């Protein structure tokens, strides 16, 4: 067999075959490339905005995870003194005469609420899809930037502002909102309902409303860019699966977040203007309120109409990243490309008609539940197609087990484990036992929390050279992977059993339940595992920042020998992405080991008689 072709002269090929859009004749760049402020702070360059999303996401991930450690200590060691946390938490640790400190129950709820809000919205929505949509959409479709760099910049700053307000709410005297990340009324609708329901909830609403604006600005931009700015030859059916995933994610966001905004408007009316959309028959301290006629179920419908698509907004980008990373590092074309695309579309569509599976136990009509059971279970079909295709993609491949690849494989493992428990929960009869127990906590942490984080880690390790021109440490990356994989299962696997036994989620303490006494040791174990996993994540953070300055330098522009267009840009990123022509595309993104060539980038023209692979 002839020797494999493994190098391409990108510059020559782009100069000869690329598309000249006369970009550099207009000098767009100069007006916002100059000066530190415009370059790094109020930047309109998609690559800088991507890094801003990532850094902000990391900041929030550390805060959100630290909160979980605090409430895990409460759950694992309810008897131990927490006085040592007094310097950090101040009045929320109540110290008695004996010097024993206890976590204030209100603040436990506030921590759980903030943990959920921060991780779901700030980290896994903005930090994940914000980062990678921004970085990869223009680079992988061959565009100079987003359709509207200005709106793109605004999208980041709305997110930033949302974060500032949420952060501020952590420090107010009544504490942040404490009624759960889903903000169900009446706790969210009546300022007097609990300590966190007052100013804390107001700030939560303001923050998340700004966040909705951020998501919409970003999403509109992503969709427009994908549909309008693809380079010559980049048909929809040649787009990498990352782009498909970000595209559908953005559509889900555009269609579902406004519904949340509607719910918020009604909540604001109920809170401040005295309407009763969501309120009825409320007694506070024995006094009946004059709010009648509303129903909290209405809010739940509005919330979960966003809420369920939202979980796919979180997981789809991770799926896209995993598909790409698995194919590149297995040196094989993705298996069943079209089926992958169609299943993304199917999941996107189905995600809009299953929301009431979160409400089986809130009094909705059981006959309506049946409808939602059926559609919920149907989601398992496209999900299974994807899992099958991922496994087949790496099967028999020339697998490089680097950190990015390990995390992508870990993603598949987590998605399987968590998807299976989803099928339990999707049956409304089984959900009678499981609802609002630790089984649900285990389900969504594995399938959404950990899996999405794994996708994000895979993306960071894989595209780090593109972002910073250097590599992250592989040794640290592997320790990070194995520690997190084992640790995450250690945390969440036992929770399934606790949940099946009926232990409810969101309880401050189980002291008064004899039936749950035998889980004391298991809860300690989970808390220790969580603390260990937290420390391992700090290793990642260390690796991340250390490598920005000290990592191994990137010496060739396509270190992974990948086929997608981002690797045809210069190592030193420039405004407009390509110094000369933009590449024209002649093939799909997955020509690995084709004929006698180890890989064929998308900008390489077809040779005489060659056929497209799908």
């Amino acid at each position, binding site marked *: 067999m002839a020797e494999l072709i493994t190098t391409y002269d990108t510059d020559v090929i782009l100069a000869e075959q690329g598309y000249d859009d006369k970009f550099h004749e207009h000098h767009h760049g100069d007006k916002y490339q100059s000066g530190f402020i415009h370059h790094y702070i109020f930047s309109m360059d998609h690559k800088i905005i991507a890094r801003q999303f990532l850094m902000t996401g990391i900041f929030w991930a550390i805060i959100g995870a630290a909160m979980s450690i605090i409430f895990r200590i409460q759950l694992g060691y309810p008897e131990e003194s927490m006085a040592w946390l007094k310097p950090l938490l101040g009045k929320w640790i109540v110290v008695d005469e004996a010097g024993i400190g206890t976590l204030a129950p209100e603040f436990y709820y506030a921590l759980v609420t903030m943990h959920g809000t921060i991780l779901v919205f700030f980290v896994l929505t903005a930090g994940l899809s914000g980062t990678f949509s921004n970085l990869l959409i223009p680079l992988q479709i061959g565009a100079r930037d987003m359709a509207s760099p200005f709106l793109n910049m605004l999208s980041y700053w709305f997110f930033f502002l949302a974060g500032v307000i949420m952060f501020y709410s952590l420090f107010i005297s009544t504490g942040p909102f404490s009624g759960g990340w889903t903000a169900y009324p009446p706790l969210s609708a009546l300022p007097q309902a609990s300590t966190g329901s007052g100013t804390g909830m107001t700030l939560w609403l303001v923050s998340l409303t700004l966040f909705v604006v951020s998501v919409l600005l970003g999403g*509109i931009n992503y969709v427009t860019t994908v549909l*309008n700015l693809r380079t010559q030859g980049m048909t929809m059916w040649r787009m990498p699966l990352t782009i498909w995933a970000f595209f559908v994610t953005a559509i889900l966001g555009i269609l579902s977040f406004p519904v949340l905004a*509607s719910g918020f408007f009604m909540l604001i009316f109920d809170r401040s203007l*005295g*309407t009763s959309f969501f309120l009825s028959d409320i007694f506070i301290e024995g006094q009946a309120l004059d709010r009648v006629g509303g129903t909290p179920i209405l809010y739940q419908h*509005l919330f979960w109409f966003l809420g369920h698509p939202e979980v796919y907004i979180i997981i789809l980008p991770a799926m896209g990243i995993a598909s790409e990373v698995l194919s590149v590092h297995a040196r094989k074309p993705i298996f069943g490309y079209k089926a992958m695309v169609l299943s993304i579309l199917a999941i996107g569509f189905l995600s809009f008609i299953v929301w009431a599976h979160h409400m089986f136990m809130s009094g909705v009509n059981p006959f309506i539940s049946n409808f939602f059971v059926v559609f919920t279970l149907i989601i398992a079909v496209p999900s299974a197609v994807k899992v099958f295709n991922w496994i087949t993609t790496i099967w028999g491949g020339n697998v490089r087990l680097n950190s990015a690849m390990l995390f992508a494989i870990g993603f598949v493992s987590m998605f399987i484990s968590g998807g299976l428990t989803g099928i339990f929960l999707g049956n409304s009869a089984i959900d009678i036992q499981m609802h609002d127990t630790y089984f649900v906590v285990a389900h969504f942490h594995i399938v959404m929390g950990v899996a999405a984080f794994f996708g994000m880690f895979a993306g960071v390790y894989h595209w780090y050279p593109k972002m910073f021109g250097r590599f992250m440490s592989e040794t640290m990356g592997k320790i990070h992977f194995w520690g997190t994989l084992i640790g995450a299962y250690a945390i969440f696997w036992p929770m399934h059993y606790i949940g099946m036994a009926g232990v409810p989620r969101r309880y401050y303490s189980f002291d008064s339940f004899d039936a749950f006494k035998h889980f004391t040791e298991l809860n300690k174990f989970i808390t220790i595992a969580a603390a260990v996993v937290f420390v391992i994540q700090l290793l990642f953070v260390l690796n991340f920042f250390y490598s920005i300055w000290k990592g191994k330098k990137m010496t060739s522009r396509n270190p992974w020998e990948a086929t997608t267009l981002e690797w045809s840009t210069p190592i030193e990123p420039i405004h407009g992405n390509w110094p000369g022509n933009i590449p024209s595309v002649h093939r799909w993104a997955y020509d690995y080991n084709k004929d006698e060539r180890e890989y064929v980038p998308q900008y390489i023209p077809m040779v005489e008689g060659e056929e497209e692979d799908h």
Partner: protein
Amino acid sequence: MSDLSINPSYRSKIHPKKFALYTSFASITMMFAAFTSAYIVKQAGGNWLEFAIPTQFYISTAAILMSSVVLHLSLKGFKQGNQNRHKYGMIAGTILGIVFIAMQCSGWMTLVDNGIYLKGNASGSFFYLITLVHALHIIGGIAALFVALYHTFTLKFEATPQRILRYELTVHYWHFVDVLWIYLLMFLIFIK
């Protein structure tokens, strides 16, 4: 061979900014779809008072329909280099937009006089909620029209592609919130 596969629709005919605007229509539509769905669900739950929609809301409807027409003519005038039509159309459109808001306000006041309060029965609450949030969208459109007026009166009359695009975006948004109002009014009339 390979060149045949090159996407001929590269840089599609519709300008990306316009496309982005149309995409945002989908978002706004979803938001109002949520309100009207919640309305239907709530109504099905019973305890729902019917009331007559004050005349002002029909007058405002006429005003906004007319404003769309004159703004359309104004846009056409701009493209054809007809400065007067452009200018007066824009002024008339803006005034009609303000009339719309004024009529909505007057309509709300009549409702209050008739004993329909925001805090009262859900049917009234929904009516205020929907019309109010819609009015906010109109106010956004009026703000955009003010920017367009400012440009018309400060810049030399010159129909550059850039300025045509900008004005088109404004007018298309206006048509959208107009159609949205028609939908909402029909909804409020027929489903009460």
